[in-house]
């Protein structure tokens, strides 16, 4: 939350200087509705999107992924157990890959729980969702979280600093969320929306419109590039004493 506020503050001057921000204030109630995506509040998907997916589920999964991603390599290095681990006949690349697989498995498991929870218990509360749409939303959520976790893993692989890895990944994911959310309100930001992986993962309202393969592919590709960077950077470094 500290990072959230920080990023908000950091963005304030740019927002302030923007003429459309004045309009935003005039249109406050409507803008708020858009920011938190409460346009379809009365329908099942609309309610769920607002309450769960527009914030809570991605937030929790991303936090989990960032904590894990920063801890798996950088945490092990800070706790100095990496010396014993790498005394074994395993390459550093393999270590990074296996750490990432552990991260992906964790995120995957959480996502399955989320999907089952909403898909099975939802109807009890008169939330009738298509499995396909729900899966699309959960996959988007999982990929966005995995992106945050992989970024933290890569930063940790590069620097060995766990705290910094967390900070960077948190700042980037929050900034992407804000960019995507504000782009609904500030037309000037609209042309930059593509830079937000949140937009690619969850921006197309998958809970009503289903899978958007191209957009999901973009997120997956960024994850792949980060993982590649993590292996290369970790392979090159002196491990801290």
């Amino acid at each position, binding site marked *: 939350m500290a990072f959230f506020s920080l990023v908000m503050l950091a963005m304030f001057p740019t927002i302030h200087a923007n003429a459309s921000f004045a309009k935003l204030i005039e249109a406050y109630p409507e803008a708020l509705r858009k920011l938190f995506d409460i346009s379809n509040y009365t329908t099942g998907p609309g309610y769920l999107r607002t309450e769960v997916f527009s914030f809570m589920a991605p937030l929790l999964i991303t936090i989990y992924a960032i904590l894990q991603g920063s801890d798996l390599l950088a945490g092990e290095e800070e*706790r*100095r*157990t990496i*010396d*014993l681990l*790498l*005394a*074994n*006949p*395993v*390459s550093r690349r393999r270590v990074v890959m296996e750490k990432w697989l552990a991260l992906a498995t964790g995120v995957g498991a959480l996502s399955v729980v989320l999907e089952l929870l909403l898909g099975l218990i939802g109807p009890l509360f008169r939330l009738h969702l298509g499995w396909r749409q729900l899966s699309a939303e959960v996959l988007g959520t999982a990929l966005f979280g995995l992106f945050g976790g992989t970024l933290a893993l890569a930063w940790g692989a590069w620097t060995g600093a766990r705290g910094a890895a967390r900070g960077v990944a948190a700042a980037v994911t929050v900034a992407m969320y804000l960019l995507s959310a504000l782009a609904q309100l500030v037309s000037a930001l609209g042309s930059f929306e593509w830079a937000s992986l949140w937009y690619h993962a969850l921006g197309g309202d998958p809970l009503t419109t289903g899978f958007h393969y191209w957009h999901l592919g973009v997120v997956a590709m960024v994850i792949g590039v980060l993982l590649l960077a993590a292996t290369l950077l970790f392979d090159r470094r*002196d*491990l801290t*004493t």
Partner: protein
Amino acid sequence: METATDTTVDQSVAISLDHVTKIYRGGGGVYELSLDIAVGEVFGFLGPNGAGKTTTIRLILDLIRPSSGRIRVFGLDSRTDSVAIRRRVGYLPGELALYERLSARQILTHFAHLRGGLDWKKVEHYVEAFDLDVDRPVRSLSRGNRQKVGLVAAMMGDPEFLLLDEPTSGLDPLVQRTVQSEVRRAAREGRTVLLSSHVLSEVGEVADRVGLIREGRLIDIESVAQLQGHAAHLVEVRFRGPTDVQTFISLPGVLSHRVDDRSLHLEVAGDLNPIVALLARYDLEDLSIREPTLEELFMRFYGVSDG
């Protein structure tokens, strides 16, 4: 798999450092280390704090990379063949850290698995030798018991090359003895050992040769016999009555002397019997005979001192 088999590689050399330099950002490190250790040899790395022992050992394992120079272990390059090297090396870190939430058994099983599976019976030998309780979580173990976990992890595969960074730190004398006997057994079986320490007597117990390292430089390599020849005893005597200091100074083996107050300080190399016989004729208030500390040894023979 086999990279450019170097025909010049001597099969009897376990490890060879060739002008290895590592300079950290702060300026510390090791400089131009060159050293060959033979297969089956026990080599002791002896040096004060910050000398560069840990740095050298971590360079061998490719945990850090040299600024220049080359390291080969069994003819394999430390940079390009690190995995193959580590398959044959058992390592005990100087600043040992273990997975706190796991038990020794879980840690050892995990590492055995990473080594492609080990016979638990082999592991059991070391567990018993070190009298280790493998089922308690590491977080509840004392410092000495943690060290035992590290030692078992390093030794359990009977590796061809044991790399032990200050293996006896934190251990009581009995367990130190166990470490020494395991090191000797490894050498008897033709395996190679490199161990570091800042205690001369400890290295002297097991090593064939000793490398003296200080401020990142290898000052000298000597056999333990040579080193112990150098290692004069320091005798400090306080007399009750008057004394003829001259008779002490002229004894064979007395390298230097110093008189202050009523105390006589002597540095005696070799046989201690003559001086003990002479001392018996006097009325002594106090007597101490000890080995020189590492620093005193460095000062005496290499003309260097701290600071």
